[in-house]
């Protein structure tokens, strides 16, 4: 057997394979980014058309995030609450009387829905409630602990990625970033 020839053929075959896989990988990422950018442009245009002021840029970079396991500690209602962060991502809870302490991240990551999706969800919710949408001041991806749906006293819970839309009237609107 001519090993020199065999090695040459194998090298060429593997190079070609890597090239194809690499290009596919790059194309997929690029496609996803472009999709988010286009979605953001279209959503901004749609908001403008509706006359809903948008005072911030719509995030347009796709990313994957795991869930975040947290525990609750009673907080002093008189003390100033300092924001809690996990790797630069703010952690918030729907319960104001407790302090959220991050414990651990989930093992696996899932792609979050786009900020444009969150904005459209907000518009749909306003339409459903027959209210006029309020201008958007800020859009932020956070970890949210939503204790709704469980009646017992909770000591540990799960925070999921959520888009937080800060509205011009001071209200906030959360959208589950896993799209559930």
């Amino acid at each position: 057997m001519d090993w020199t020839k065999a090695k040459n053929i194998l090298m060429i075959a593997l190079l070609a394979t890597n090239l194809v896989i690499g290009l596919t990988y790059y194309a997929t990422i690029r496609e996803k980014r472009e999709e988010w950018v286009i979605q953001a442009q279209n959503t901004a245009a749609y908001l403008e058309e509706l006359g809903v002021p948008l005072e911030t840029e719509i995030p347009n970079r796709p990313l994957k995030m795991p869930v975040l396991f947290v525990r609750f500690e009673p907080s002093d209602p008189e003390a100033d609450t300092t924001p809690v962060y996990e790797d630069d991502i703010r952690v918030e809870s729907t319960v104001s009387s407790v302090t959220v302490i991050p414990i651990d991240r989930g093992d696996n990551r899932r792609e979050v829905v786009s900020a444009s999706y969150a904005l459209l969800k907000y518009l749909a919710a306003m339409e459903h409630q027959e209210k006029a949408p309020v201008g958007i001041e800020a859009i932020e991806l956070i970890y949210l602990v939503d204790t709704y749906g469980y009646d017992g006293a909770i000591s540990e819970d799960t925070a999921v990625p959520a888009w937080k839309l800060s509205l011009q009237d001071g209200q906030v609107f959360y959208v589950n970033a896993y799209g559930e």
Partner: protein
Amino acid sequence: MSQRNTNRTEHLKTVILVVLFFTTILLLYLLWTLDAQNRFHLPDILPQRQALEVPKAEDMLIPEQVVYGIGDGSYRQTETETQRIFEKGLLALRTLFAEEGASVSEITQAQFQDAMREYRSLAINFAYVIPFGELCNRWEILRPAGSEVIQGMKALAFSEAAVRSLFIADPEGNKYYRIYGQSEADVFAGMTEGMDLTELTAYYTVGNILGGDNDRLIPLTAQSELVPLRWREESEAVSQSVRQALAEALFGENLDFVRRITDNFGNVTYMYGYGQKTFTQQVDGVLEYKNETSDEANGGFFGDLETALAFMAAHGTWDGADERELRFFLTNVQAVSAGRQEGYRFWFGSKIMDQSLFYENSSPLQIEVLDGQISYYRRDLISVESNGRTGGLRSAQDPANVIAHNYNHIYNVMTGNLLSVNEESAFEYVADAVREIRMGLVRIANDDWLQPAWVLETTGGQMFYFSLYEAIPIGMSE
């Protein structure tokens, strides 16, 4: 020199090949992770080598007891080999139905009771009603025209009053039937031949022993070799594997993204959505699953039972049961509905080392099937540390004594009336309310030992537990 250069080039090529190969794997992994949510886990991809052993639905239908009427007001009752006797009874039913001119006629409750009480008789009793049509289909028994009127069966009975007949009772629907053929074959003799009743415990009606009209049966005396058994929740290894298998199977690849909640007591709940699907692991080892089912076709009694058994087998319910000498059987069935969805809820009891095991307020396994899908499942299994026999029989308290010593307590609980009442009327009330009294091991809250007990069931389904040898109240169901 040239040879050395060639060697160096070949080495370099080999290194490049290895690098390229690993680069291919890395690129493939990156491409795969773009869309996949989970990490690469080889055991998930390889086929499962162990085939699941799903118990047969038929094997779960075990008659609660077989009662032999002697015809003189006394009875003999057995709780062993009941399934074999039931199979024999079904054979007799098949033969009878196959006869030309086989007929079904509805009889009254009094006629049925007369046939059981006044003559030698044999009644195979279940704790629940089995849809009769489905039962016949399951055992491939061809039903003659006219037998469609029989909807449910709780007892299959035979009597010397009509030796060529067979009786079917559905006391809950107050329906009683007599099935008879044209042949001269003695069905009753066929069922009872070779039976040695002398070794069975004698039973009498509550009315005969305590006075009144209650025709439920209780033993006059009893002996037992039961002793207290130390119990514990099933081992951490079994429990952990079952919990993991259940959680993974119920939530699939979403398990890493469902909400995990720990309450202040340490109970862990996995929740999908806002409670469409929840799975709770309680600190006391109980596992509970709830699921919002969608509208599908109803599976029927046996279809739903098979769905339930397949679900429990697939999720490790019987893992380690053999080693623990645990045996499960169906103890209760209830037809349920939710909106347009219909199905059954099944309760499974267990025998541990051949001894009936009772839980003060629950049962080891409970599962509900709605429109062919599992909507509820609860698992609460235990292990015991030694066998429950001393080797010697002891006299247990007579059931009549148990009732006589405790009728005030039973009356107070049943009526909610804690004030003293006329003793005679309280006794009569209790004697009338007795539905069944059985012997077994009972798991009482906050007691690490399974206690030998008399288990008294009253009308309405409330259970009272009394120590077997002292007749002292040790617990009751809520």
